[in-house]
């Protein structure tokens, strides 16, 4: 997401009251609906309705008669599906796993993106355009393709990486139970660090150069300028990339799905999204799958809003 999310500034409200409106009291206002309605119609159809329908389905379940001779009946189940999901060790395990994944991936991502942005923004950097394009390029590689590529680089038979690590005697098992989560984190970092770096660079370029001049006159080194001037001033974009990384990590799906055939360390309910997918298609239980999908949405909302509230309370509002 490009910009810094922000609500409307007071100016827009004031201008609305200020003028323009009373001048044309009889002007038809149907055009407003023509501009606004198409988006909200498709938003309702393909965004709100699916969510509502999934929530609705999550309150039902199919009950088959004892012998399974008659058609199963659809019964209101109350919160049964939610209880089932939240007491299932596999689903809870998958939630724990993505939380652990977020705990690793979010700091790694933010530090990488920030380091790259500061390096490229530093006065010492040369060939900036080349580096910017190389770092940003993986963003254009779809998650599936990225996972396929790294999959080949993780498998000993095809990987020059494994060869090289083995040659110098470093550990080189990327697909074991202890390292697979890090292997997945690496794919996410590779894909999105460059994009997040661009968001930060855009923030850094908005800082007036006089601030650096002043700091240099005061004898500050480049590193001190980075730490005391640049980082505090890109706080808002930092919060933004943190939130979107957080949301992304909780949604983990494609990478483990693609890597799954390469390793026994990934189960069919490795992440919450995989568990819901598995529930819907392998187990054909769309009601439990709906409850799980709803729980995933709630979890990602609560965590991202919680984080935004936390950072907004600590300092000035970033969002």
């Amino acid at each position, binding site marked *: *997401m490009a*910009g*810094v*999310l*922000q*609500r409307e*500034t007071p100016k827009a*409200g004031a*201008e*609305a009251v200020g*003028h323009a409106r009373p001048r044309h009291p009889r002007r038809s*206002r149907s055009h*407003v609906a023509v*501009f*606004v309605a*198409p988006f909200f119609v*498709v*938003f309702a159809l*393909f965004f709100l309705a*699916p969510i509502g329908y999934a929530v609705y*389905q999550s309150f039902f379940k199919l009950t088959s008669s004892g012998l399974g001779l008659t058609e199963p009946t659809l019964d209101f189940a109350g919160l049964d599906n939610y209880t089932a999901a939240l007491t299932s060790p596999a689903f809870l395990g998958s939630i724990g796993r993505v939380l652990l994944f977020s705990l690793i991936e979010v700091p790694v991502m933010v530090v990488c993106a920030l380091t790259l942005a500061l*390096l490229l923004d530093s006065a*010492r*950097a040369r060939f900036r355009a*080349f*580096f910017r*394009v*190389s*770092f*940003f*390029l*993986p*963003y*254009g*590689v*779809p*998650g*599936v*393709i990225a996972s*396929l*590529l790294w999959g080949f*680089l993780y498998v000993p038979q095809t*990987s020059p990486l494994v060869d090289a690590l083995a040659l110098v005697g470093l550990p080189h098992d990327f697909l074991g139970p202890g390292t697979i989560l890090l292997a997945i984190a690496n794919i996410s970092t*590779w894909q999105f660090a460059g994009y997040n770096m661009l*968001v930060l660079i*855009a923030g850094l370029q908005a800082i007036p150069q006089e601030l650096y001049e002043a700091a240099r006159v005061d004898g500050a080194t*480049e590193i001190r300028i980075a730490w005391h001037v640049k980082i505090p001033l890109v706080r*808002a974009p930092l919060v933004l990339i943190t939130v979107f990384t957080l949301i992304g990590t909780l*949604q983990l*799906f494609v990478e483990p*799905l693609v890597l799954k055939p390469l390793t026994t360390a990934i189960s069919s309910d490795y992440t919450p*999204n995989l568990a*819901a997918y598995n529930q*819907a298609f392998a187990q054909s239980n769309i009601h439990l*799958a*709906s409850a799980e999908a709803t729980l995933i*949405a709630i979890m*990602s*909302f609560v965590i991202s*809003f919680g984080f935004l509230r936390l950072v907004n309370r600590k300092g000035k509002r970033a969002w």
Partner: protein
Amino acid sequence: MVRRIRPATVVVMALLGAAAVYFLLPVVWVLVAATKSSADLFGTFGLWSPEPQLGTNLGRLFGTGDGLFGRWIVNSFLYAGIGALAATLLSAGAGYAMAKYPFRGREALFNLVLAGVLVPSTVLALPTYLIFSEVGITGTFWSVLLPGIVSPFGVYLARIHATAAIPDALLESARLDGAGEYRIFFGIAMKIMSPALVTIFLFQFIGVWNNYFLPLVMLSDQRLYPVTLGLAQWNSQTFRDPAFYELTVTGAAVSALLLVLTMASLQRFWRAGLTAGSVKG
């Protein structure tokens, strides 16, 4: 003038160089691997191709299954292109109206849009599948195209940009000159908003192109697959027939290269878009 090279420069350049190796390695690997036979893929060093056979591989890639791969590429362009174009138009209209016309419920609607920005597409895939199967349009071209025309982020960006970039005085004078609201929008507002609109288009294009969960649950007919789903499916066949390794790798190389070239050529738009988003950040 000979510039003295400082130690700090060496450190910075070494770090940047190492990062470039990291980011480019998989791309270089796949480009090399695309020139190999399946046997060489497993038998030779990853970054060197002793007997390049790119032509053979490309021939097989585009020949398999009556040109299935070419179809997938075209499908991806259709899903992403049409989806992003429609999303951009809808977002432009809604964002512009929300920026420039006060109306009741405006802020409530905008808050709904903001909440939508935080809902990732993976959350929506399964619910969308459920409701689409209820109306019976799963498995069709539309089932992948239609969800792609909604971009809450686009509305958000269009509104922020329109508020900042379109002066009210300009709209007033156009009205005094007798221009209707639609003409003002299509003739003036869309032009001023074009940097933001390009950004919205690109984000949505990449978003739809990269979306895997949605086509995965919606489609069963191979001929409707986007390239991501098709390649993943070939990859899952490799255990059955190792020839699919060649196809998957060459296909991955072609589709990665395709997007990389697109991204590189559109780089200036990206930069403009990134700053446009944070006008008042």
